[in-house]
């Protein structure tokens, strides 16, 4: 009786909480809070799953392991912050997304227990931990502590003047890399920014691998190198 009440109660709470976006019409929940909301939903799903297992007292069966494996995996993909922005605009869709978390948590705990008693607890703790830990970095930008800001400042390259860099590029680089870095004798430079960041570009221009000639410190000085790097970064 108690187990039935716990299972039904947990499911009811999870159901009501799932529809909070529709009830409260709350939008643009921060990603950190959103992950924690999911952790709460999954907690009730897990409680319902474990209580359901205890109430039914079913026999163990190897096939249930798939539920214990796939449910956390799918739930992790549902935690993608890309989805949060999309579902935020559609409260009903958002509610169904929440229900999916509840069902997956319930399935993970119940299936784990049906596989071997005790495994459901392990899977439930695993899932719950993932939901909570996600709140501290998944879709959440790092907090700018003083040490982090200092560290970023050390690694950052000074910004160059891309317009001046374009002129310098035409004079010093275009004969091999082609006009606007389209590629000729030397490799094409369009999209180079996807392969190297500013600091790496500057380092490469200063100390290239053969057959590219070394143009630093003469005829190019530090400012010239920064400007050319800024220009190359813009080549798409």
């Amino acid at each position, binding site marked *: 009786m108690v187990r039935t009440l716990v299972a039904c109660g947990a499911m009811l709470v999870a159901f009501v909480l799932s529809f909070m976006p529709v009830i409260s019409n709350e939008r643009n929940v921060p990603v950190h809070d959103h992950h924690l909301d999911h952790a709460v939903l999954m907690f009730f799903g897990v409680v319902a799953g474990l209580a359901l297992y205890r109430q039914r007292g079913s026999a163990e069966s190897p096939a249930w*392991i798939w539920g214990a494996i796939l449910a956390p995996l799918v739930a992790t993909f549902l935690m993608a912050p890309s989805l949060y922005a999309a579902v935020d605009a559609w409260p009903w869709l958002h509610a169904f997304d929440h229900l999916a978390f509840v069902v997956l948590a319930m399935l993970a705990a119940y299936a784990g227990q049906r596989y071997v*008693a005790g495994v459901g607890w*392990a899977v439930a703790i695993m899932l719950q931990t993932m939901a909570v830990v996600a709140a*501290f970095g998944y879709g959440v930008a790092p907090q700018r502590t003083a040490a982090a800001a200092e560290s970023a400042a050390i690694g950052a390259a000074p910004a160059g003047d891309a317009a001046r860099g374009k002129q310098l590029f035409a004079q010093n680089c275009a004969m091999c890399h082609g006009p606007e870095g389209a590629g000729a004798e030397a490799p094409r430079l369009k999209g180079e920014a*996807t392969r190297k*960041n500013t600091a790496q570009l500057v380092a490469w221009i200063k100390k290239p691998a053969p057959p590219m000639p070394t143009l630093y410190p003469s005829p190019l000085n530090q400012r010239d190198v920064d400007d050319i790097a800024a220009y190359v970064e813009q080549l798409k």
Partner: protein
Amino acid sequence: MWAFLATGMAVFALMVLVGITLRIEQAHWLSYDPGIFYALMTLHGAGMIVGVALCGMGGLWYVMDRERPMSAALAWCAYAAIVLGVIAVLLSVLVGRFAAGWTFLFPLPFVGATWPDWATGAFLIGIAFVMTGWTIYCLQLLGCVLSAYGGLRGALGWDLVFHHDSFVASGRREPPPQAFAALVTAIDGLFAATGGMLVGVALIVHWIDRSIALDPLWAKNLTFEFGHTFANLTIYMAIGLVYVALPRYAAREWHTSPVLAIAWWGTLAFVATAYFHHLYMDFVQPRGFQYLGQVASYLAAFPPAVVTIFGGALLVYRAPMRWTMGSMFLYAGLIGWLIGGVGALIDATVPINFSLHNTVWVPAHFHTYLLEGVTLFVLGWIFTNLEAQSGRGSSLLTRWSAGLGVFGGGALLLLGWYIAGAESVPRRYAEQPPPGPAIAAWASVGAIVLALGLAVCLVEAVRLARASKVAA
């Protein structure tokens, strides 16, 4: 078991060859593009860990299946997922030249990449497949241990420790030592998979949608929570095999005692929390984690030293020991583990870590316990089974050739890293500053001698396997 062992050893052998090409490039005997060096280094790291893990997984699955039968079909599913992952990683590195290192630390796979975008995706998806296979394996192993010994309480040996007399009087069977290795592998393995799955999926999502921000410190914590724990567990899986195999040669039993149970509880806790020592130099890491990393790293050393290494030495001491290829490797592996562990402890000490962690001291210690620890345990296990099945042993010449190659060559290779590390030669550099190249030259000789020793083992294993078939 043999599918896991054969695949694991094949991957291992391939990675030995890759490793030799890396070392001889650093010695300037061979010259190739640094981009290729870093791609090969990525492949070597990922491949080696997965290779030895496969061996340990197969062996431990086999010994625990004897305790309580498990589903072979499920083990095949885990195997298939891991093999698929290995193929994806091979494609990513060999075709796409992905070179962000096997630790794929964010944002390295995405920023300043010299490889195509698909290679990053293939690598991450490959790792996700490996992790899925690992999760299947850990859940299966956990199910086996829990059902064999009456739940978590029984598997931990709780009553054996706290209600010893009544436990003995009840006539209940205590879990054998290998069951503790299996329990720790399963629980800490799932703990590792939790972090690994989360950061793995987050990186895949970031690969698809770059607008999704990830906190690099968060990602680094989770990556090492998975990576360090997974790598560490390879040795604990192999230890399960030592518990079964070494007593056969010593004609003595390896008993489960309350001390052994308590030591494994310690291992359960400290293996999961020692990884923080990888982040000592991340000054934005909360300070509490740094203290935890220091304490856990030190404490993690005691249980294996007290129970397994000292216990193994006592098991062999004055026993009517039968020295064969199998027993030689099993016992030598304990020594390699001890030496590698001391190297790890030195690096895990905060003030020393600041000087050593970015040097080749780190590959020195982990190669010691992987090459002269886990690999030897696995070789010992393979030869134990082949010797038993064929009813034959190896000649003295074969034992000396294999021993000299594996231990002599291994010692030369490892000393190269330890000495260069003490000389502050940086790690993960294609081009090392002096005295790196000079040391790499004689370390390369060691690597080649080691490979020859392993080749002798392979030939001998094939000979014994053929004899086993004839005997059957």
